């Protein structure tokens, strides 16, 4: 077995040193009836690298690779180009095979990286501080709601209809057990209701926080200033959720518009799609709330010789010290994904992120213009960054499947995101990033045109 270095001879020597006859003597505490005597049912014996690789390649071949087809899917995870050096750096064993930096004198590499990550995230989201990562955007979002409850000592959270429905589901799941009250509603395609007015109206003295997504699930970008003011008036916090951080290169940050807590999904920078995980939750807030934050925080200090160094800090918030009084139960977070994010952000820098964001926006506008030129296809989204929603003349779920049958991954149907709601079935959410080529847009538009006109392409 290639990973196990002990020889039988050495095992014998070690048993002798321990003073037992056989390995079974080390398992004496396990009651007889709980011991497995035979081999593990059905599992074959060890396999060579070649054999494992063959099996994995066969499974992988059954999937349609995003990068090999015209690809327009977003809705909370985005396909961006990840520079080659990112994957090289995260595979350095000193990063890959280290753990949480509990011993700071021999973990300055991870700690300095986390300090840089926290700074990048805080600046990007427009917050004073940011933590060293959460699991993903959806768990960050719930942690923010629960942090707002601790700060305001109120239990009612208002979630805007623009928040990703899966994030809303996570919050609902938790709220059912914690006793938080969630005020949620569904988005609409008709554009007749004034969502902001409804949201503003629902804020009252009981409200602990208002949660808005920016850009939202349909791709809309809306000014958060008025909501922020109203929330402040009622001593509620404004929580902004960013699922596409590349947008921060083109538009104002939520912090600039007054958000108290900004959480996000960092996947689109450096991490890759990976069928949903591992991703990296971003979590930033105003400095005055830092002691209520969940998760690890890295802070600057000096060593005994006066040299600058970094440590994990404010850990009296955390489970290993505070146990059932901790701000969160999180322990292992998304360290390596935070590194990938940070390396990609370092490569981009200020200029790169802004240029990248504008390329995304420009391509999305081009795609939107082309697709809405198709008869019967209408734009639902107002202002947008790199994602928008179309209303098709028919159920979008079937269209998405027909496109997939032609090797085109043409967005996410609202029917899949909101299976139990009427009136959204014709909605199709489309994301366009720098990886999309002009010809992809043409292929997609032509296929959609043909399908909608009842033909087969």
């Amino acid at each position, binding site marked *: 077995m*290639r*990973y*196990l*270095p*002990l020889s039988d001879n050495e095992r014998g020597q070690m048993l002798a040193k321990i003073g037992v006859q056989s390995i079974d*003597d*080390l*398992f*004496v*505490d396990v009651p007889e009836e709980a011991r497995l005597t035979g081999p593990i049912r059905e599992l074959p014996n060890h396999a060579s*690298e070649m054999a494992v690789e063959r099996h*994995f390649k066969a*499974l992988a071949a059954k999937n349609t690779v995003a990068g090999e087809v015209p690809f327009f899917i977003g809705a*909370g*995870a985005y*396909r961006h180009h990840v520079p080659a050096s990112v*994957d090289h*750096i995260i595979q350095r*064993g000193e*990063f890959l*095979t280290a753990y*949480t930096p509990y011993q700071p*004198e*021999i973990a300055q*590499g*991870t700690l300095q990286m986390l300090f840089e990550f*926290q700074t990048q995230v805080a600046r990007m989201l427009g917050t004073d*501080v*940011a933590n060293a990562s959460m*699991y993903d955007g959806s768990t960050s979002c719930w942690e923010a709601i*629960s942090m707002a409850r601790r700060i305001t000592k109120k239990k009612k959270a208002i979630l805007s209809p623009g928040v990703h429905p*899966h994030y809303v*589901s996570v919050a609902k799941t938790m709220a059912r057990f*914690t*006793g938080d009250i969630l005020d949620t509603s569904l988005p609409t395609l008709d554009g007749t209701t004034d969502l902001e007015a409804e949201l503003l109206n629902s804020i009252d003295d009981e409200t602990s926080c208002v949660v808005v997504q920016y850009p939202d699930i349909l791709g809309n970008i809306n000014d958060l200033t008025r909501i922020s003011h109203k929330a402040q008036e009622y001593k509620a916090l404004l929580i902004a959720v960013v699922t596409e951080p590349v947008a921060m290169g083109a538009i104002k940050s939520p912090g600039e518009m007054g958000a108290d807590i900004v959480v996000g999904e960092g996947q689109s920078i450096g991490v890759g*799609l*990976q*069928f949903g995980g*591992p991703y990296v939750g971003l979590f930033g807030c105003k400095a005055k709330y*830092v002691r209520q934050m969940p998760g690890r925080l890295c802070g*600057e200090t000096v*060593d005994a010789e006066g040299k600058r160094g970094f440590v994990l800090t*404010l850990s009296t918030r955390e489970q290993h010290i*505070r146990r059932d*009084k901790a701000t969160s139960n999180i322990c*292992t977070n998304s*360290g*390596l994904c935070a*590194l990938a994010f940070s390396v990609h952000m*370092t*490569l*981009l*820098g200020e200029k790169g992120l*802004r*240029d990248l964001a504008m*390329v995304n926006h420009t391509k999305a*506008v081009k795609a939107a213009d082309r697709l809405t030129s198709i008869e019967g296809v209408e734009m639902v989204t107002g202002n947008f960054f790199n994602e928008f929603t179309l209303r098709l003349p028919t159920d979008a779920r079937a269209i998405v*499947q027909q496109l997939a049958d032609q090797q085109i991954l043409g967005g*996410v149907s609202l029917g899949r995101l909101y299976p*139990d709601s009427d009136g959204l079935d014709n909605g199709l959410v489309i994301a366009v990033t720098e990886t999309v080529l002009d010809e992809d847009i043409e292929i997609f538009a032509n296929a959609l045109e043909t399908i909608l006109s009842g033909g087969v392409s």
Partner: protein
Amino acid sequence: MNQRDLNQGRPSRIEGDIDTTNGRKLSTFSGNKALMLDEPLIFELGSRETCGVDIDVMEPIESRLGGLERHQPIGLAGLSESETVRHYTRLSRQNYAIDLGLFPLGSCTMKHNPRLNEKMARIAGFADIHPMQPISTVQGALELIDELAHWLKTLTGMPAVAMSPKAGAHGELCGILAIRAALEARGDAREVILVPESAHGTNPATAAFAGYRVEEIPATEGGRVDVEALAARLGPDVAGVMITNPNTCGLFEPDMRKISDLVHAAGGLVYCDGANFNAIVGRVRPGDLGIDAMHINLHKTFSTPHGGGGPGSGPVVLSEALAPYAPLPYVTKSSDFFQLVEEEQSLSEDSDTFGRMTAFHGQMGMFTRALSYIMSHGADGLKQVSEDAVLNANYILRSMDDVLDAPFGHSGPCMHEALFSDKGLADGFSTINISKGLIDEGYHPMTMYFPLVVHGAMLVEPTETESKHALDNFIGSFRHVVNQAKEGDQSLLQAPHFAPRARLDETAAARRPILVWNEPETAQAAE
């Protein structure tokens, strides 16, 4: 209690740089010491104009950003690719890692991370697929999840598994929510979760996060759950227990079956923290001990890399009683087609899910690695894993117990980790000094001051991927440092002497937190 904060304050200044024979101190102009290279922050190195990616900027169009265009600078620093690679390579060299040497951090199972697993996870058919792609285009991915789920159920002897939890603590949450949902369905959610005092901090934190009140159960002299105390506390208000097995003292709970029966008889349910599954994989099936839920840290037993703090993955195996409450989404198979059940309305009759824990389907990148690990080891290899893990830990236990107090060592063997206390060290010396001494010896220290039931705990977990040669070297260093601490060797109090940094001032860091970099003229504390 305060022992966790002991000696965390700023130590006194240590001797300066190396003295030469003529008494002059040796130092360099740069501050570097040959291969020991200091590195500034990216914000001190880079600029707003520098970019390490070539982006084909497009002709400007009429913006649809609706007046929300960014006018303020973000404040990011960019580096060219060459500078970026150098920056992170220099940083990486200030880290200890498994690839460099033995990493006996108890409870964390820091075993070798096979590189085949990295290669498998990077196959485009797994790495470059979107979680919301049409189900027909991700059949291979769903099949892989189903396959891993099958082996996890087989290895634990449990009928169901929830794959979406993102780490151990998230798995605990999944299990406790399932317990609560099952009790609510009986019309009686109950109020209290019992947790042994030796439990990991995530256990009480999770129970509280799920809306339960936590009560502690004492340990026996022998380091096990006090079954009598537990039985006495059971009652109609107790929703369940969270028992770690093997426990955090590195011992198997021989009465686990009895505990399960007692809890069930009192109407409660049993959560098992499976962080230490590495000790028993292939030899014991937790399902045979009557438990209702257990998380498996794929980043421990199944070797997915710890990555400097994550990501992890924490699938939860469930009993018949809890299976109906498993979270969404999950994979089902009908004839040859794999389905992803994402929403309540598409549920079958026997499901009564408690909801959703995360945006998508779990840690796919960890699933690929874990399956690659399981196949590579196979039935024979996995059994050998637990045997060698236990053998290595006992070898350390018996090679140290003449110099270091092993509070439970006299009563018999340990499982995959050996636990020591700081009894017998010279006055003023504690576990942290041994840790810092081990750093100078070229090792990552063991877990210190955990579990809380042992004074100055040192929890040593070597794992099965260490050779006898590596163990012998470690034991030599460990004995040396322990003897220094027993003899009161003052130099140990200022250790580490040879690390990239001397002891760091954690008190100052917490008193005046600096959590982000600020331009020097505006630098100030975060609060």
